[in-house]
């Protein structure tokens, strides 16, 4: 028996590189555990538990769309690299909790094979003693025999001078077994047994056989031919070699299996499937407080998009190839933003512009504003590639529904950023949408080439004054259409006009989605009121001049926050009793009228007392 516990800490081959063809999901097995292997269009190889954590359906029957893996059962989408869930179609208006993540395993390509393992902490087996300048993997062969019973009969078979498929040569090998999972056969040249002249030229490469423990009773033998490939021996000779070894391995399999026929069946290995966290077994509670900077990222690239707009690309620290736990960034959905803690002490919110599957970095686009309060200046003027910054995890309070029959994206200036990531997601999934970008000058049309290449209609409205802009918007929102949704991001005045027009024309509040850069209104914090916290049993007084959020924080009541000016929606709290004085620009008029939630950073009370679900 192999040492199962030790085997969990090793790297094992789980597939040939060539098994992972584009847009395919390959079902692999290791130590009794099923894995779904898939290669994204960016080349990244994913090795995941073969089980959607929603209802346990195999992900190997899912759809690889090049950037995300889609479960067949309910259409849940999981991102390349992180396996984070990016969309749950049954609840199109909700952003999935960013931590809903499938179980993943490390995956590395080497020696023409895909390597993975449960918790590998060593190195992938080296083939340094062999010629690895060119390598050709053989077809993997499954043998219904436990791993420890393979090597010896396989050595016997290969070293006893078996005939090849073409029956024309015999090769002698010397065997070396550095560990139970690897057999190296050194070729000592071939002997002619026929007069076939072609046989003289058949090369005799050394072979490494890796043994992949599928489960307690079965092993995959993955051979690689060392020192040969199509380029140095030509495709005809290579095909002859592959045929010969395929024939020999099938023969060897039959011999090994028949020699093992009467042995008892070993006890199966039952893989442990990790439980989902308590938080995902039910609705997630509000935890941890404030503007949290949980991530450390490194600025990896800065690019000019226009004279005044730059993109900044951030990568996770400590990303290592072959590390058992490569550090990955939490997955973000279209419309999500992060807080960036700037070197000058400011905390600013920026929308991520990443498209689906672009999970190895966060990208933001920032316009240098003359009236900047310090955020855009700090980014544009003082940051350089290599700097390490603290950021929050992505939050999404501007969620893209994907159950619309048509989606209208309306951007004012740099307000394009959240809509750019939405456009990328819609375009990738072939969902119908239209994008309108209002800009002052032609040079403000960032990512124009990319947008023009999308299947959707994209319109640039250049240099319109206030009246012209309002006329264009009025025409766009002429009549409400069922199952159409509008997303708008831009300056406060433009949003205000759009929302008003849409309401007048009869668009339902829930079809109009908006995100403000900042709260254009001055917050009136002159009122005094009492709050009762239903779950914590606290009774607090909020005096004039102080926000509800800061009072909660003084009493160690955790509420997450981000912009802290009533624009982003992060610090939302449920109201059980009392009438809120909203003052935010996040909630729609309908939501405000319902009065069952408020933004704790700016909202206050019209009634003497509020009861909050905290």
């Amino acid at each position, binding site marked *: 028996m192999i040492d199962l516990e030790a085997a969990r800490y090793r790297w094992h081959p789980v597939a040939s590189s060539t098994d992972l063809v584009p847009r395919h999901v390959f079902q692999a097995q290791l130590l009794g555990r099923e894995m779904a292997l898939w290669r994204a269009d960016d080349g990244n190889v994913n090795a995941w538990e073969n089980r959607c954590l929603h209802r346990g359906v195999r992900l190997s*029957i899912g759809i690889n769309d090049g950037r995300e893996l889609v479960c067949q059962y309910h*259409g849940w989408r999981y991102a390349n690299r992180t396996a984070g869930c990016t969309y*749950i*179609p*049954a609840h199109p208006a909700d952003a999935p909790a960013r931590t*809903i993540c499938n179980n993943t395993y490390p995956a590395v390509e080497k020696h023409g094979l895909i390597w993975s393992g449960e918790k590998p902490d060593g190195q992938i087996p080296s083939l340094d003693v062999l010629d690895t300048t060119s390598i050709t993997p053989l077809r993997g062969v499954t043998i219904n025999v436990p791993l420890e019973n393979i090597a010896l009969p396989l050595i016997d078979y290969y070293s006893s001078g078996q005939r090849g498929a073409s029956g024309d040569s015999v090769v002698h090998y010397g065997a070396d077994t550095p560990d139970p999972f690897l057999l190296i056969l050194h070729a000592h040249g071939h002997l002619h047994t026929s007069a076939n002249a072609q046989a003289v030229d058949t090369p005799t490469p050394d072979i490494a056989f890796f043994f992949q423990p599928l489960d307690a009773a079965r092993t995959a033998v993955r051979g690689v031919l060392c020192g040969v490939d199509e380029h140095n021996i030509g495709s005809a000779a290579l095909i002859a070699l592959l045929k010969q070894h395929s024939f020999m391995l099938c023969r060897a399999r039959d011999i090994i299996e028949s020699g093992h026929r009467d042995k008892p069946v070993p006890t199966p290995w039952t893989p442990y499937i990790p439980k*989902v966290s308590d938080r*995902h077994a039910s609705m997630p509670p509000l935890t941890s407080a404030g503007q949290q900077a949980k991530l450390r990222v490194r600025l990896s690239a800065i690019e000019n998009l226009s004279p005044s707009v730059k993109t900044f690309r951030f990568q996770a620290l400590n990303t290592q190839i072959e590390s058992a736990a490569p550090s990955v960034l939490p997955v973000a959905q279209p419309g999500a933003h992060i807080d960036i803690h700037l070197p000058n002490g400011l905390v600013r919110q920026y929308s991520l512009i990443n498209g689906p599957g672009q999970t190895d970095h966060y990208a933001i686009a920032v316009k240098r504003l003359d009236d900047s309060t310090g955020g855009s200046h700090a980014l544009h003027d003082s940051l350089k590639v290599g700097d390490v910054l603290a950021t929050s995890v992505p939050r999404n309070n501007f969620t893209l529904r994907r159950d619309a029959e048509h989606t209208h994206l309306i951007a004012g200036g740099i307000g394009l950023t959240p809509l750019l990531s939405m456009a990328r997601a819609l375009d990738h999934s072939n969902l119908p949408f239209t994008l309108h970008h209002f800009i002052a000058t032609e040079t403000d049309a960032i990512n124009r080439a990319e947008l023009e290449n999308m299947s959707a209609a994209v319109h640039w409205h250049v240099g319109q004054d206030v009246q012209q802009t309002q006329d264009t918007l009025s025409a766009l929102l002429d009549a409400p259409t069922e*199952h159409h949704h509008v997303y708008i991001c831009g300056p406060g005045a433009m949003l205000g006009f759009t929302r008003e027009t849409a309401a007048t024309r009869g668009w339902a509040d829930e079809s109009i989605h908006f995100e403000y850069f900042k709260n254009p209104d001055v917050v009136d914090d002159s009122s005094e009121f009492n709050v009762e916290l239903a779950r914590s049993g606290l009774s607090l007084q909020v005096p004039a001049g102080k926000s509800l959020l800061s009072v909660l924080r003084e009493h160690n009541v955790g509420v997450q926050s981000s912009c802290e000016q009533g624009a982003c929606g992060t610090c939302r709290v449920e109201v059980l009793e009392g009438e809120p004085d909203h003052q935010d620009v996040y909630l729609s008029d309908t939501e405000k009228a319902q009065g069952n939630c408020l933004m704790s950073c700016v909202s206050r009370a019209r009634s003497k007392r509020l009861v909050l679900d905290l």
Partner: protein
Amino acid sequence: MTQCSDPVALALWHPIAAIEDIPADGKQKTQLLGEVLHYRKMDDTRVSVHHGDRKLPVTLAYGYVWTCLGTPERDLFDLPEYAESDRRNVCAATVGVNVSAPRAVENFLDMGHFPFVHTGILGAEPHTEVREYQVNVDTERDEILATECLFYQPQAAAGSSGGVMSDYIYRVPHPYCAVLYKSCPTDESRLDVIALFLQSVDEENIRAHALVSVIDTQSSDLDIRMFQQNIFSQDKPILENQLPKRLPLDPRAETPIRADKSAIAYRRWLRTKGLQYGVLAAAA
């Protein structure tokens, strides 16, 4: 084959065959809870069922033969619509599926998969939203009731043409049976009934029997069967790729969402009953 030692499953009535499918002559064989049973049609109103030499209790109801391997604790649940004179009652399908019965019940209660598994029939993208609905456990009748279920359907039944928002009511009156009531496409005031009766061949294999009871003067029996069997054929490959095959009752085994309210209630109800057959018990 492990013998069933679950007292809850042993005391239940289980379906084993459509009455109309039993040949007039000869002994038939089937399997229930891992045991081989033999049954025979005595005449049009009587069927006998044997486990070895032991004669088992029999109930003929809703077009199917029901039996019990232990001592039945109660009568089979009520399905009063079956007796309404203007209904078409069709034994529409019996399909073998390599999955546990509770997994199949959950799939029957689930609306979220319609656009992805029953594409173009019971659902279609982009209309994927599962709206809030109500779930209650009726303690008196000991059954689960899910009401106010609303879902967009391109072709809700054999007799419908064109998309509608369908109203659903789900009932789970038995650990291995579920009944669906949905708006009838031909008569607004009535509800069509589709009932799923699961025969646990063993813990991880079932025969799924369907009763369709509808107000529909247009469709032939064949149309109704083809519709139902098409739906089952779409569910089968999904169900057979669920891991584990038994329904995990540990709340932390899988991630539910609001759309799964009825499934959450069903798992809790099974836990309360102490049912063991076809489920993975929650850790104590």
